[in-house]
């Protein structure tokens, strides 16, 4: 009994499936919500940067060098291009092709490792210390914020890849891969405004 009321059966749910893909899946909404939280964090960090930039007569202040365009350009190109295998991966998830999903995740892991390498060199060429002035602090804040997302996403992808190769893959795990791939798209999209703000806005001002 539910409480003290008499129950009246009006239907049965036993015939429903036990998993779903995309927005039908409950976990997809959790993933989207976390993107909303972190997207808000990115937006506010960008807002803080624009605020400080607006308060300062010169950006960067006189004496500070501009950040290098070489490694950052390579990172950005590689990051944007990584969306292609990522989209391919999402298609394999939809097609439930386990072998290709495993392969796609392995490729994404390797791409993630390469990106971290590029990011490492990129960070050597920001040409300002975080403790030098508010400009330096802001540049480093944006970079650390984005790098932490690349690292988190890489670890998640790598762990999931190991799991996928060693276990029987069910529909729920395909859902996990899709969420992981969606999150990768988010990490790419978040980088675009930050890249412009860190590397190009100081040159245009």
């Amino acid at each position, binding site marked *: *009994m*539910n*409480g*003290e*009321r*008499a*129950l*009246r*059966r*009006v*239907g*049965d*749910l*036993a015939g*429903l499936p*036990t998993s*779903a893909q995309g927005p*039908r*899946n*409950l976990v997809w*909404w*959790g993933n989207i*919500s*976390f993107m909303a*939280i*972190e997207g*808000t*964090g990115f937006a*506010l*960090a960008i807002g*803080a940067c624009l*605020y*400080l930039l607006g*308060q*300062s007569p010169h950006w960067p*202040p006189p004496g500070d060098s501009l950040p290098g365009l070489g490694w950052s350009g390579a990172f950005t190109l590689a990051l944007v291009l990584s969306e292609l295998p990522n989209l391919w991966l999402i298609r394999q998830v939809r097609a439930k092709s*386990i072998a290709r999903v*495993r392969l796609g995740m392995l490729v994404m892991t390797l791409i993630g490792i390469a990106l971290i390498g590029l990011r490492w060199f990129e960070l050597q060429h920001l040409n300002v210390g*975080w*403790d*030098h*002035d*508010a*400009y*330096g*602090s802001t540049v*480093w*804040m944006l970079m650390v914020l984005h790098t932490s997302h690349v690292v988190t996403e890489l*670890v998640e992808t790598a*762990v999931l890849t190991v*799991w996928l*190769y*060693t*276990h*029987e*893959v*069910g529909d*729920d*795990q395909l859902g*996990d891969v899709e969420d992981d791939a969606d999150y990768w798209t988010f990490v790419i999209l978040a980088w675009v405004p930050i890249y412009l703000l860190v590397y190009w806005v100081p040159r245009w001002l």
Partner: protein
Amino acid sequence: MSPDERERLHAVWADRPGLLGFLGTVDHKRIAARYIVTVVGLLFLSGMLAIDMRLQLSQPDMRRMGPQQYNEAFALHGSTMLFLISVPVMEAMALWLVPLMLGARNMAFPRLAAFSYWLYLGGVLMLWLPHALGITPDLGWFEYPPLSGPAYSPGHRADIWAQMITFTEVAALAASVNVVATILKMRPPGMTLARMPFFLWAMLVASLMTIFALPAIMLATSMLIADRLVSTQFFAPAAGGDVLLFQHMFWFFGHPEVYIIFVPAVGFVSSIVETFSRRTLFGHVPMVLSILAIGVLAFGLWVHHMFAVGLPRLGNDFYTAASMAIALPAGLQMFCWIATMWSGRPRFATPLLWVIGFIATFVIGGLSGVMTASAPLDLQLTDTYFVVAHLHYVLIGGALFPLFGAFCYWYPKATGRMMSERWGVVAFILIVGGFNLGFFPMHVLGLEGMPRRIYTYGPDMGWGTLNLVATIGSAIAMLGGIVLTGNALISLWRGKPAGADPWGAPTLEWAARSPPPQHNFEEVPVVTSIAPLWRHGDLPVMTGLATDRREVLVTSVIDAVPQYRHHSVGPSLWPFVAALATSGMFVASIFTPWAVVWGAIPIGVALVLWFWPRRPRSATGPLARR
């Protein structure tokens, strides 16, 4: 459901006995109850701090506290009330009520709920353990730089405050994501958005506001910690930083926060008014629209906390107008509640008394809010006791009174017992009377020019009598709080058995047993109206949810059409371990920046083990078992 199936269902949803069961539970009711018990303990501590401060101010030239002790007392009181009580208790009420009101067996992400509580407890300990050791933040509840920066606040007091924020905000964000996903995707068949009870709308709006407001404070306090720990220059004017940036970010969070506390209270009040007026809410649709309007407008008001810092005039004018605009949806709600009671057959049990206390008190707080929304008047009143009076009328009257009403209303559901009505009325009179006696005089003190955050004042100021009255009022309210808590504790043993639906209420939680079993409902209720239990004498249900594994029903976002049966995860120690690891990282990071790097490793390991799916070893692919 056959007796066999029923037994299996109980076994599948039961927690293990003993310590492991205690630490690993993912039962939303147990988790929410922990939140609430923690909050009650903190309310007592925070109330004692308030009494301590009131005694100090009860007469001129009192010497029982020095300025440092006084600074610590109001900083600890404010931080506890805002960050450790008001927001978490609203999350807790959502965690407890939302699945029951949806006829669901658990939250969308059960382990995330457990993680949320353990991290919240970490935040409580972060503030109160150092206090027990004599290290207490002393810069108020909003710790503005440059005072909180490295130059003026050496030591770790400011770090403790800033990191306590990180704990509680991560906990609140985790809870909010859970509430949003549960409300959007786990409504019972038939509960379209149009038939969703108002309480769930309130919790949905409050949770969405949390998602968009809390990152601001986390970012601001992280920047403050970075300034203090690794010498960044965000708030250092000499190096191009700006102290007002902190205020902007703090209040971009801080003003929505007031509504994150108030909006759930609107939900409590609406539920109580509906049940005790014995009719559905007057103006349900305008009420929903007004709460959505509040959710949006609340993000456009923050600068009214900064009128005195010297911003451009045009900005002040805009924020004055926006601040007054939000009084419109809030006023509309008042009229809807009054119309519901007027046109219904009201029964003045304790929960409805609290609603009436709320309306009277909150209207006063709202009016003093409209006054302080005006930039020229605010310049006179800011940092005086008028603001202390206003904020307590809004927060105590607007959030805690509805919370006490909600506590009395849902207590029988949670415990299976009725609270004593007589002692309920005594507590109500003591708290509402004592509160108004204690805080109304502060309006006058503020108008007479008494500044807030002073530890004493001279006899020639003429503020002694009103301060003594304020102290007496606060003590009466505190006594009322003890009566309320005592009533709740004694009723656990002595209360009359409540039955499933003691108030004759319309929403689904009253169809479950009191207290509800761990799986809440055996079958999935089907909803055909906004007040489902008033529509039919019996309960239409759908069968077919598994009894041999933890399963919940997932439905579509708008129309709540059943989509699939979702496997709901069971108890696990990993959320507790992950919270421990996160706590360790947070605490260590006020001493060394490397804690963020090395501390991430145990957190990562705990999260991997938390989410590691248990399935058979692969029979295909290069790493297959052969």
